């Protein structure tokens, strides 16, 4: 583990791109301050040395599987009910590849 973690302005913009959120100048300043304060608080976790296995879920997956039986699902009308735009049986979005 190296020294304390703090996010720079450039990193901040990089992560914002990953999150698909854009930030105004003002927001960058404010978030940078809040986030570095929070990361400083997280240091107590980072500096811990623990030899136990990480726990990501409480319940075991042993009971997760069920029989694959056909059942009623959503109607076409319901599927598109909350979409802003549809064409026949498709959701409409902006162009993906430029």
């Amino acid at each position, binding site marked *: 583990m190296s020294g304390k973690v703090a996010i720079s302005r450039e990193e901040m913009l990089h*992560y914002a791109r990953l999150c698909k*959120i854009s930030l105004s100048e003002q927001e960058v300043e404010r*978030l940078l301050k809040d986030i570095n304060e929070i990361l400083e608080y997280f240091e107590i*976790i980072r500096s811990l040395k623990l030899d136990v296995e*990480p726990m*990501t*879920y409480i319940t075991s997956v042993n009971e997760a599987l069920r029989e694959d039986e056909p059942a009623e699902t*959503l109607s076409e009308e319901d599927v598109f*009910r909350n979409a802003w735009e549809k064409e026949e049986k498709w959701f409409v979005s*902006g162009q993906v590849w430029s």
Partner: protein
Amino acid sequence: MELNSILERAEFKELPSDPVERVYRALEKIEKNRDLNAFVTVDAEGAIKKAEEIKRKITRGEKLGVLAGLILAVKDNISTRGLRTTCSSKMLENYIPVYDATVIEKVKAEDAIIIGKTNMDEFAMGSSTETSFFGPTRNFFDHSRVAGGSSGGSAVAVACDAVDIALGSDTGGSIRNPAAFNSIVGLKPTYGRVSRYGLIAYASSLDQIGPMAKNTLLTTLLLQVIAGRDLRDSTTLNKPVPNYIEEVLKEKDGIRIGVIKEGFENVDEKVSRKVYDALDILQKIGCVIEEVSMPFMKYALPAYYIIAMAECSSNLARFDGIRYGGKPVKGKWEEQLVKIRTECFGEEVKRRIFLGTFVLSAGYKEDFYIKACRVRRKIHDEFKFLLKSYNALATPTMPVLPWKIGELLSPLEIYMMDIETVAVNLAGLPAISIPAGFIGSLPVGLQLIGDHFDEATLLRISYAYENESGFNKWF
């Protein structure tokens, strides 16, 4: 046991003989308390229709559900078919679910009357209902103060008597915190006891739906209805659901309660004293009270926030505004996505998505996320060790009294308010907040934590304490 005798025991003032009349009275209460901002959406039409259906059943002598005629408020992150469900976010301002959450199917089948959807922190990310897109919910006992959160609207709807029972959700304390701040009972069930199908996800390994009410028996009754295995939620477990009402009425003698020493550090002294007074009452009625230690509790808060933020950054990636939510935006797909997410998520949600993305990113994942998951195991193991010797563990629910709306300014200051509650979610345990009294006009809550799938013991202690302290008559 019949509903009427349960309600009589719960000292319910008026039995639901005319459900339609009760709905009109509830609507009046909601209107009278509009300034508390407990509701995002009120479904007067749906509630009256349901009440009329129950009335017809009564006239025809048909079998009634166990919640027949009880008025229910539902937190606005639980999907209700045909009834707007916003998560108190601009992102879902106009979202109408096309299916019911499993808990909603269950309460409808038992003839509960859903009167509306309650205000919350945006996407349940907050501890005071201040991050709601629709403005904060106000504390029932002091309107200038926060209701707690994130299920603040559900707690206030119960406290102001608009509803008999309410559903909330609890990821890091979101049921227990507002229950404590409004002097009601709130139970976070064991992870896997209640289906999360239809609950709009915040942090999937921590989220759990639970009941809230003014007294123990109504809380118990609602748990009875919503508990159980659901094939649509693979994390629910195939364990039989006990008859909770019978369990609650059993003898209480010899119950052993461990008081977690670390749970009283960094707590307002007046709050601590009130909680110790409540523990004295439990001792008086036959519980054995002993002090215990949980050295890892101090790591629970940062570990919780790292894990919750990591999970939320993944869960909230689905909001692209194309299939549902957001707003119409022209342009290329990526431009649409960025514009919608930038304009429709609030500041706290963005902060958590951002930090979650960071702690999962290459180079930092091992130091933050994986380490937090190791802490999670340590906390789980410490709890399990203590719960071998004790039936329940006790702490204050909240470290302070309800604060003034807008008083806590930095996000970290607000995160600190969750120090008592988050460890429970990391370990997947059940926990309850019960009213412990008032300091001036402001309520204090006692938190009791039980072993996995042992909600019954928590409710039994709560019921015994309620009879001794009379907390259901404090309003």
